[in-house]
């Protein structure tokens, strides 16, 4: 299903869009298709299928010969590219008794397991970043009887938390290996981590150029980059995607080109974008001239992992990366730092406004919008639009409603 959605969309993109149109989508789909084909072949060879949470970096699974499936990525990838999205599977879970207010990124894949589309040999998940993970994953263990490896992620960004989580990660990987009958190959893990170290540098370079006006990325780049990283981290495809994107961005930066006709406004989305319709991003670029500089999945707070020293130090670096991942970082500390770096982002990236999308599932962020709005107004003098929605289900806040809210908001800015 994932491969079909990717291939069909890729065909459409290649045949309908002009050759230079939306390079992030074009290149991203090529890479995604290549990785999916590889894993589908591996699954046919009988390699174990391992489901993982998006806050467990995909490259960490490279120490095993397995077929990794990102639970959250799968739901939202299909919500984006499949006609009708993942709605059928959300509804199956609702009928099963799953609450309407949990995360659709998990609910979709859960529904697919009810429909026996997936049979996992094991799953691995941190106990983060929010209640929906804590609440939803037991379904896989207690209802579907899939072995579930939990890695306990502590609250608060402290030194002792990093060490605790490093130990948890190591133990978790060993436990997973026992379940699927494999020893972790740490050399392979190092190679995958080194790929991601390079990707991080490329992303930071791109990020630096986003500070300039007009923004040299398309709004869609954010979604594609995040999606690719979620599914293909640790693969050469993820590296080459970011290398190719860097070339595109450098060229635009040099020529002061904007992806749309003209950049009229610059926005930061401190939380998520819509996954049920990423064409909203294109519409914003072209119709409103509104740049989405980045969303939560695209700003990073971790250092490259040291792979040259001993294993313990590498796991410490892996812990640091994991606890600095998008959404995880903000969920394992108080709101103070989040508000502070939003203010700094607004200044550094010359943002005209913030658009805060409050997802129904993310209760851990349900208390911050008003605090952030007040801080942005006071410290930077820019407004924030709040839209309540479900990132993977258009039935809660439709695309039309989204567009209308944003049009009205931007009218107050110009």
């Amino acid at each position, binding site marked *: 299903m994932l491969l079909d959605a990717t291939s069909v969309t890729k065909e459409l993109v290649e045949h309908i869009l002009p050759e230079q149109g939306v390079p992030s989508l074009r290149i991203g789909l090529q890479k995604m298709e290549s990785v999916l084909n590889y894993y589908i072949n591996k699954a046919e060879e009988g390699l174990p299928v391992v489901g993982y949470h998006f806050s467990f970096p995909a490259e960490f699974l490279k120490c095993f010969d397995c077929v990794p499936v990102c639970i959250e990525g799968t739901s939202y990838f299909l919500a984006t590219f499949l006609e009708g999205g993942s709605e059928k599977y959300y509804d199956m879970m609702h009928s099963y008794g799953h609450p309407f207010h949990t995360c659709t990124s998990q609910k979709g894949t859960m529904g697919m397991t009810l429909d026996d589309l997936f049979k996992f040999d094991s799953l691995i998940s941190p106990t983060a970043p929010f209640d*929906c993970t804590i*609440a939803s994953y*037991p379904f896989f*263990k*207690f*209802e579907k009887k899939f072995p579930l490896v939990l890695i*306990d992620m502590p609250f608060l960004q402290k030194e002792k938390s990093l060490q605790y989580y490093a130990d948890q990660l190591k133990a978790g990987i060993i436990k997973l290996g026992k379940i699927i009958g494999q020893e972790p190959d740490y050399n392979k893990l190092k190679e995958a981590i080194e790929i991601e170290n390079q990707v991080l540098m490329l992303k930071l370079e791109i990020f630096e150029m986003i500070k300039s006006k007009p923004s040299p990325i398309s709004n869609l780049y954010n979604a594609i980059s995040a999606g690719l990283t979620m599914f293909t981290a640790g693969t050469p495809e993820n590296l080459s995607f970011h290398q190719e994107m860097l070339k595109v961005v450098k060229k635009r930066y040099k020529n002061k080109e904007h992806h749309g006709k003209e950049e009229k406004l610059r926005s930061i989305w401190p939380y998520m974008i819509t996954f049920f319709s990423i064409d909203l991003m294109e519409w914003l670029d072209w119709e409103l001239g509104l740049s989405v500089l980045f969303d939560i999945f695209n700003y990073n707070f971790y250092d490259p992992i040291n792979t040259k020293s001993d294993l313990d130090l590498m796991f410490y670096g892996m812990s640091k990366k994991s606890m600095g991942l998008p959404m995880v970082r903000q969920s394992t500390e*108080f709101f103070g730092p989040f508000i502070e770096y939003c203010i700094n982002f607004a200044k550094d990236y010359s943002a005209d406004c913030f658009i805060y999308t409050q997802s129904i599932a993310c209760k*851990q962020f349900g208390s911050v919008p008003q605090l952030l709005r007040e801080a942005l107004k006071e410290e930077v003098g820019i407004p924030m639009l709040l839209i309540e929605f479900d990132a993977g289900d258009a039935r809660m806040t439709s695309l039309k409603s989204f567009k209308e809210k944003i049009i009205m908001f931007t009218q107050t800015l110009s």
Partner: protein
Amino acid sequence: MNSYIENWQKNGNKVVGYYCTYIPEELLFAADLLPFRIRATGNKDTELGDIYMVRFTCSFVRATLDMALKGIYDFLDGFLVCNSCDHSRRMFELFDLKVFNRENFKKNVERFYLALPHVITNEGFEWYKKEIEELKEELEHKFNIKEISETKLKHSIQIYNENRRLLRQIHNLRTQANPKLTGTEVLQINMANSSIPKDIANEHLKMIIEILNERENIDITNKKRIILVGSVVDNNDFTELIENSGAFIASDVLCFGTRNFTDDVDLKIGESPLESISRRLYYRLSCPRMMDDHQRRLDFLKEEIKRAKIEGVVLQRINNCDLHGCDNMLFTHELKDLDIPVLNMDREFYQADTNRLQTRIEAFLEMI
């Protein structure tokens, strides 16, 4: 503020507010601090809370924030939050920025945070124990206490174990075949118990037990014996609605109920009192915030169903409570497989859509 708190503070003692039963009450009490469990009993409004919390959050927590913003919790001298759930854990920041920093509120309220693991493992226990040790030092430092001694901790444990024993005794008076009190009355006792010093509470509980023992059995003819499970219930309106619909709440799995008094602190030889307190809290009957402990919760529920001769299970969650919502989903299927009648419902904290709830409860009771 009740008169017990008034007297407590008149004597120069401090009160520390908290949300969740995962905090070490015994430690606070040993430091002459009164642990006060924050509730929103009777509040039907979330107007001020809604300014800072979006509508997808828990209406119970919003109602407590609403009360705090209105100054109802201004009597607190300290505030201790732990990462129980995504709704209550963020009260640390909101109280910090918006409640204790209100205009004209000059009092210095000390803030504390306790980070709980989400799984039950040896490493998790070591983490939690260390958190509680650090909390002890922080309490001593911030409240200028020379030392919270082992003797005081042991005395506090004794009082709290006695308190839990008495609550269990009262609980047994309702689970028995001819109950002495209703589920609503049990809830009232548990709530009052959470808001007063436990040494005084124990004296009152003993008196209540004496009165109950002499009291006539309550009439539960034609009533169905149910067990109430799920999100926090600190509102009589809700339990009354259930009991007025033809049910008798013969038992519960709630944090104002069995979850709070089932286990005692076991003072082990060679173990410090603080470690024993940590052990009880960490390994006790969990709430769904503990991610891998569903089986134990199910086993307890099944035992309680047998023990209290339960005819039907009412699972409930406050809207937007993911933790209880998903745990209840699993219970629903597991109990149905055992042919135990189950009602799984959602509600708001304040008594809204009463007719809908009543209809569902009555229909369920008729089905049993």
